[in-house]
């Protein structure tokens, strides 16, 4: 089996190289190759997964966790390969080359048992990410730079963390280590590894590259990397670190939970006020990571299972949402919410899939997002049973986040698909894109309706190694069903009352076809609330952005250093003399 996995990785890399070497004109050939390879990769992982093996050597670790993540990576590789051809404007050879390399490196990083292998492939992923963002041309250069610095910089922390761990334990394989943190070096190693996982997955405070690239990078790149693959990888690392590598102090759990809960709420507030569809989705891609972190950080079986389940669910619906956004942008030429509207009739397939994915991400039953969020909540409650009291705060924050997610998706659905149309000439997305959208939306439904037999038991059961715990779902479901019923009742009752329909007008004038009321304005009010006003102002000045803050500080220090370098020879000579005196005083003291 080890040979088989090695073969798959090698095939991914070789096929990527071939794609890069082929001339860009041979679009069909490249597409066929990429499709064939990613399909073969997916099928082989399905085959391996079916056998429920586990394998462990010095370099390779194949257990329930790496199996499900590797399967996920190969699946999204396939979906994106199918969906991309019609959405990327140029550079087919480079795009598919980098895509296949990403798949190879991603799979290799996930099945790596040796520290060095993980670091190498993890770092390589930063390069392909950088190159894929840069494909969008000069305007993507700045976001790409920022991404490389954040993601590549976090790799250095990964390296440092693993070095610390190696020196502390004397072991180089994940499978051999279960380190009890009792020194500050151990805690430092843990924090270093967490930084790497957070930066890759996009959890706060290392999330800022995702919104930054969202507007410029190609949409399939967004759907592939930040939305699905990087989530899988980042949460994989976090789970590996938290569950297998360390057994640690409650205060570190607390830190993780705090990061998760803050990520959920802060990012969703940012998402509420966005005008750009892709940027809004990007903030949600950050916000949802919070649930995964929260789930893993509960430390209870159901919570961890929920976190991992949410990781898979999020990858599915966020990929669907980004591809839907890509379809809209491709057909209309814009992704600004203010300029869109009424596309539901023009693009029914896109609308329905987008709606399903939106409901899933908002946690509406019976779609998959509801169940994974519920498991995370239950995990928090269970963690509370063991005596900790902090869980209430996190639970409330997570629920607020969920409600606001629904609010912001209502905004996007209304602005893009409902309301008045702005553009007459819009067609449905091309068939390859529709195929991907429908597949992903179907998975949202299936994983929701059959959450226990299909995803939780079959996919994730092996990952945690214990049978899936029972969910106490009956009471909430009754409440939710009643709630939905009441809502529908109110809606129909309102239909009974008399209404007058009139054309939309402003100041007595009828609205022209070009002018239309967009949903975005309804959400600007949130910016005026007393506490939030200051937070939004701060966010606009980017005081919450690690990258920008770091840049400011470093820039200040740099200016100090530069001011010292006046170019005056006398000053330089005095430094030399000063250095000589210092060394002299050190050595002649004795």
């Amino acid at each position, binding site marked *: 089996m080890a040979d088989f996995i090695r073969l798959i990785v090698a095939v991914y890399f070789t096929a990527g190289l071939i794609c890069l070497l082929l001339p860009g004109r041979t679009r069909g050939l490249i597409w066929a190759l990429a499709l064939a390879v990613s399909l073969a990769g997916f099928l082989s992982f399905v085959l391996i997964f079916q056998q429920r093996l586990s394998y462990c050597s010095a370099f390779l670790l194949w257990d329930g966790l790496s199996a499900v993540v590797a399967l996920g990576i190969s699946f999204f590789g396939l979906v994106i390969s199918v969906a991309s051809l019609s959405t990327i404007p140029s550079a087919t050879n480079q795009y598919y080359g980098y895509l296949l390399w990403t798949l190879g490196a991603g799979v290799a990083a996930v099945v790596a048992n040796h520290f060095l292998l993980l*670091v190498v492939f993890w770092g390589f992923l930063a390069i392909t990410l950088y190159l894929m963002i840069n494909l969008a041309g000069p305007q993507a250069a700045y976001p790409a730079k920022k991404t490389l610095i954040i993601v590549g910089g976090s790799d250095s922390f990964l390296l440092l963390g693993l070095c610390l761990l190696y*020196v502390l334990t004397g072991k180089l394989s994940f499978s051999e280590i279960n380190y009890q943190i009792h020194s500050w070096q151990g805690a430092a190693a843990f924090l270093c590894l967490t930084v790497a996982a957070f930066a890759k997955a996009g959890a706060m405070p290392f999330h800022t590259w995702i919104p930054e690239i969202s507007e410029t990078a190609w949409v399939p790149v967004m759907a592939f990397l930040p939305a699905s693959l990087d989530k899988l990888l980042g949460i994989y690392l976090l789970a590996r670190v938290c569950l297998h590598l360390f057994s640690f102090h409650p205060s570190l759990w607390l830190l993780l939970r705090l990061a998760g809960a803050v990520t959920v709420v802060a990012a969703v507030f940012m998402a509420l006020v966005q005008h750009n569809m892709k940027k809004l989705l990007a903030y949600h891609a950050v916000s949802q990571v919070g649930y995964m972190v929260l789930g893993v950080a509960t430390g209870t079986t159901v919570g961890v299972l929920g976190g991992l389940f949410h990781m898979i669910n999020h990858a599915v619906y966020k990929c669907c949402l980004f591809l839907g956004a890509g379809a809209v942008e491709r057909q209309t030429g814009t992704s600004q919410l203010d300029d869109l509207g009424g596309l539901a009739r023009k693009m029914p397939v896109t609308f329905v899939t987008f709606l399903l994915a939106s409901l899933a991400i908002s946690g509406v039953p019976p779609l998959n997002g509801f169940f994974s969020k519920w498991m995370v909540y239950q995990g928090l409650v269970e963690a509370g049973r063991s005596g900790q009291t902090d869980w209430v705060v996190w639970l409330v924050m997570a629920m607020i986040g969920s409600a606001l997610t629904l609010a912001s998706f209502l905004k996007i659905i209304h602005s893009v698909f409902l309301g008045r149309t702005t553009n007459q000439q819009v067609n449905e997305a091309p068939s390859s894109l529709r195929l991907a959208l429908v597949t992903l939306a179907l998975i949202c439904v299936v994983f929701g309706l059959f959450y226990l037999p299909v995803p939780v038991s079959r996919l994730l059961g092996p990952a945690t190694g214990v049978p899936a715990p029972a969910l106490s779902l009956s009471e909430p479901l009754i409440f939710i069903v009643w709630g939905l019923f009441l809502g529908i009742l109110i809606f129909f009752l309102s239909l009974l009352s008399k209404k007058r329909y009139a054309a939309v007008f402003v100041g007595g004038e009828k609205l022209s076809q070009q002018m239309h009321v967009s949903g975005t304005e309804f959400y600007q009010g949130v910016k005026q609330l007393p506490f939030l006003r200051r937070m939004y102002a701060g966010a606009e000045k980017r005081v919450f952005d690690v990258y920008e803050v770091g840049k400011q500080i470093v*820039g200040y220090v*740099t200016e100090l250093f530069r001011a010292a370098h006046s170019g005056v020879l006398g000053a330089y000579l005095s430094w030399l003399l000063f*250095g000589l005196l210092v060394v002299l005083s050190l050595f002649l003291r004795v």
Partner: protein
Amino acid sequence: MGNVILLIALPLAMAFFIPMVGRKVRWLPDVLANITTLGLFVLAGQSWGREGIYTMGGWPAPLGIVLVLDGLSALLLFIINLISFLATLFSVDYLEKLYTSKLRYYSLFLLMVAGMNGAVLTGDFFNLFVFLEIASIASYALVGFGCEAEELEASFKYLVIGSIASTFILLGVALLYGRFATLNMADVASALQHHGFDQVSLFALVLLVVGFCTKAALVPFHAWLPDAHPSAPAPISAMLSGVLIKAIGIYALVRLVYNVFGISPLLASLFTYLGVISMMAGVLLALGQWDFKRLLAYHSISQMGYVILGFGLATPLGLLGGLFHLLNHSLFKSLLFFDSGSVEYETGTRNLEKMGNLVQKMPVTSGSSLMASLSISGIPPFNGFWSKLVIILAAVQAQRPGLALWAVAGSILTLASFSKIQRYAFWGQGKDFDAKLWEGWKEVPVLMRVPLLVLAVLCLGSGLALWHGLKGLFGPAISVLTDGPTAYIAKVLGR
């Protein structure tokens, strides 16, 4: 062993032969210079893995001058002659377009190579001083080769600071000679072991250390470098940053400290402090730069900090990291300077704000520069990653995690400043980017592409390939350092 002397004699002779015969035929200087450096590279390759003593004129060790070839000098010889061959190859078209007087250029170039080869081979203090003066003086002239005001100013500053450093070195050598009545390094080492350290020998040590640190451009002795390195023609910058500061700076320092005086805790901690300060100061200064080559020059300071940090840890793993990073730095930094030369060759500017979108016009240059940038920033699988890994691991293993954290911080800032280059020059656009000029830019001539490709492949390949044979490759050099003065004395003096 006999042909070791050729490594010094051949470039020295060709330095004067080329101007004599090359005046008439246009292509002759290029061909002769390239053949010479290729020959030197072959010679250096032959001496790889060999050890021995060459006595000049047949006079045995303490009396006459000896050349000592061991693992450490063989490694340096390999680096010097590889980069100088690639630099002459790059010079052919580069000089043609941007400079005049190739004869003087090659003459000075070969003198510099002769000086460096001599400095890493010699086993004699005064001889070391002479060779490093040959190399330094040739480099002063080469820095001012363009004869523009800025270049002459840089050359002047370099000259003044460099001469003071040389004076310190000479004074140190003189003090040692006065104390022990010998100039042979091994002899001095054995005398030190017999008599122990006194104030005179310690003062000499301080003078020599400061002198070599100035040549190696470690903070606070670095001030000449950011002016000098960017002012030189690009292949010379590659030589200066890639090789010169190592051969007459780091190498001489390490040889002095490890093989003559013996590493002491005080020296080791001095090295680590110098390392951390240089690492951070260099990279912080680089971040604010808009001049392509100046940015690179500051990074040389920073990267020398990594190297000396490795040596300061004084564990076998630390030494391995230092030596490995020394080799890697010479590969990726010369590549980066070659890239900057290619960009200057096409665009006529070193200002990042005037560049843009070169990735579409110059695929070889931008591809190789991306690889080199990722190397220097320590991104796997490129070679810089492996050596930084070894250094960080060595620091953690030596119970100095603070040093490892500095190394990581420096690495992230390095990544930041190189992604700046990538952003403005290659992928995006600078502020003063002119699309009309951009239309006319194209890839550089083939002869300039060859060094770029060779080094890019080495940057990628050396990391992966070396990982297997790391011990075998650096083992001899490391054992030279870990065995200390005693083994060195035994080897040279036979006692």
